[in-house]
């Protein structure tokens, strides 16, 4: 199942010359990046390289020092799927798995309305899809790390998002769940762009269309051919390299080792 990116379509998101830092420390410098309508973009790079920060800027959670983020098609709030890394909330908070996933159905528009039957049906469907049905009534603190990660993915996709951002979605997921996740992402990517921060490009290789390598600067990106040298510059060590050949969408895997 290969789909080519429709070049006529304008990018959904354009980030132009983004510079950002925390305090006085610059984290991102002059980063320009587009998200295409059918993109599957993997953002890779060393820890502390600014991957998560870049995604937060794209989502509007952080305001860049300079540069701008343009959404060419307005995506309604509540339709941006976001799977953060674990630690953004307190696991001790008294909520059940289904309560957490339900929150994905909330948006500015329906803020004052109680969750509807459709909301609950959507939650049941996505829990089923991700193999979480048995855990629906469990407290979030009682479930494992991998299960929690699937819960967060369920929360992000339950509202039928128009774009999906995932921050290290495969970090603590077992092989079986990874299969379910890959299937879900592939299906979603037929309609919407997906952006994944990951250290594990191999696991998602069949899906990834473009790779952005972030280490303060955007080291490599579409157009500039990915080569081992740039990647090693980014990571400071030998890396596994995935790139596209002349045919868009056909991923070739090149393994480089010294």
């Amino acid at each position: 199942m290969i789909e080519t990116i429709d070049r006529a379509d304008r990018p959904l998101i354009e980030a132009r010359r983004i510079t950002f830092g925390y305090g006085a420390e610059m984290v991102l410098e002059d980063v320009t990046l587009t998200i295409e309508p059918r993109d599957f973009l993997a953002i890779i790079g060393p820890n502390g390289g600014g991957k998560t920060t870049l995604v937060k800027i794209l989502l509007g959670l952080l305001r860049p020092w300079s540069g701008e983020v343009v959404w060419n098609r307005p995506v309604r709030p509540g339709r941006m799927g976001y799977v953060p890394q674990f630690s953004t909330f307190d696991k001790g908070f008294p909520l059940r798995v289904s309560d957490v996933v339900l929150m994905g159905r909330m948006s500015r528009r329906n803020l004052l309305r109680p969750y509807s039957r459709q909301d609950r049906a959507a939650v049941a469907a996505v829990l089923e899809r991700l193999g979480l049905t048995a855990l629906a009534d469990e407290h979030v603190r009682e479930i494992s790390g991998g299960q929690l990660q699937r819960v967060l993915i369920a929360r992000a996709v339950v509202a039928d998002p128009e774009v999906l951002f995932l921050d290290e979605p495969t970090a603590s997921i077992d092989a079986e769940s990874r299969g379910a996740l890959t299937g879900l992402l592939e299906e979603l990517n037929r309609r919407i762009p997906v952006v994944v921060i990951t250290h594990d490009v191999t696991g998602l290789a069949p899906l990834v269309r473009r790779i952005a390598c972030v280490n303060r600067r955007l080291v490599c990106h579409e157009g500039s051919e990915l080569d081992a040298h740039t990647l090693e510059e980014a990571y400071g060590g030998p890396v596994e390299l995935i790139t596209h050949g002349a045919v868009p969408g056909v991923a070739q895997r090149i393994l480089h080792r010294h």
Partner: protein
Amino acid sequence: MPGFFDALSYEFMRNAVFAGLLAAVLCGVVGPFVVVKRLAFLSDGLSHAAFGGMGVCFYLHLDPLLGAMAVALLCAVGLGLVDTETIRSYDALIGVFWAVGLAVGIVFVYKTPGYAPNLMTYLFGNILLVSRHEIGVLLVLAVSVFLILGLFWKGIVAVAFDEVFARVQGVPVRLLMTLLLTMIALTVVLLIQVVGIILVVALLTIPPLIGLMLRSDLRGVLALSTAIGVAITLGGLGLSYACDLPSGPAIILLGAFLLFAVYAGRKLRGGALRSLPALRRE
């Protein structure tokens, strides 16, 4: 406990029961948010910051309750709107409110001609000395808190649970956070005047901790902590009457005993207190 019901023929005892019930319900509903958001220090800080407003009101010959409420609102809005990227620590900011409020209060009381009231007595309200007026104020507050929570439940829970995600969903995070902090602040400041800081802190923490140990959904925690607050308030007042004990401490010690019993019960059953938010620091 027939003696206790006889005692209800006294108005002061009826008022104490009403005030205690209202305090228990307010704390039962607001307290779980204080515990899960780790804002217990807020109640302490606010109680002292409120002196600022009360001092100004003494100087201007206004009802000190108004000053206390104004300060509560000011602090809540300040905390809700402050840029968390710039101000790193809520705790430290609350400490600033604590000191500045107290300082303002002392200055104004000092400058008030003639009789200088001892503001410190306001920290230790007595549940047996509650007036009808105060019960009216608490009733209005309780109804408002229930209306706001009912209306904004979805958003407030989302913001309390995961602010980042709520922001991505387009939820007005600052507004809802300010609303939540305002409810907490008003509850704390008004209840302190009525039942005293010690009982407020106890009711804000003990019943929610028990609720969090026994229930895993927020609604359940709120319901259970309200019920427990009501139970220990009534039980404590009864105990106080029957055994001739000071009423506030009787309520608190009963609550502490219950907390210990539930904790021990969970531990003995091998039940997990794996990650009770208030007890865990990472």
